[in-house]
């Protein structure tokens, strides 16, 4: 399977703390994308990192990619209660026509 798998499955932190979420995958990828989903709602695109990139930033988000370890991490700095959501990594693997393969997601709870 080429699925992205996130860990931990659930994360609970205090507002203001940083949240780190990890994603591992099994085959070569073109890119990896992180999404947020609030309960029962749509998928909000957060950030895309391509296989030739190692790190990207967007506001309070920092994503890293280690292709040798087939893993990525999403760091949310200075978390807010509004960051409470499920976070998914999705991989577009080499040879595919850009379809995304999603992991099971991480449930992040930020306590006010």
């Amino acid at each position: 399977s080429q699925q992205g798998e996130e860990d931990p499955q659930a994360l609970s932190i205090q507002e203001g703390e940083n949240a780190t979420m990890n994603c591992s995958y099994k085959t070569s990828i073109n890119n990896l994308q992180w999404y947020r989903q609030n309960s029962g709602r749509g998928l909000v695109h957060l950030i895309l990192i391509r296989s030739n990139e190692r790190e990207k930033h967007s506001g309070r988000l920092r994503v890293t990619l280690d292709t040798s370890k087939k893993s990525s991490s999403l760091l949310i700095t200075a978390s807010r209660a509004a960051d409470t959501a499920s976070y998914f990594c999705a991989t577009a693997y080499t040879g595919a026509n850009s379809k995304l393969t999603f992991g099971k997601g991480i449930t992040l709870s930020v306590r006010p």
Partner: protein
Amino acid sequence: EPEVTQTPSHQVTQMGQEVILRCVPISNHLYFYWYRQILGQKVEFLVSFYNNEISEKSEIFDDQFSVERPDGSNFTLKIRSTKLEDSAMYFCASSELQGNMGYEQYFGPGTRLTVT
């Protein structure tokens, strides 16, 4: 900011009925996708569409499913004879370009399909 829209937000149908889910992708995007998420499960790829034809489809996307771009803006998913197991949230997505490294896929808010 441009966004993908989907209608209806919730569709209830009886088993065996046909449903059409509608999507309006972002206007300058060229690639369109349907995904689904059964409650409590992963988001699963169904089909991708480019230049008025299917680019790729998953094994879920059998003969009961079809996609169409009937005009310059809409992108539809039809399920001919719904089954109970088709109950899920269906997401439409679009991307601007496809290339070796891929591009962002932007998702709509989803249509929750309930088959009774």
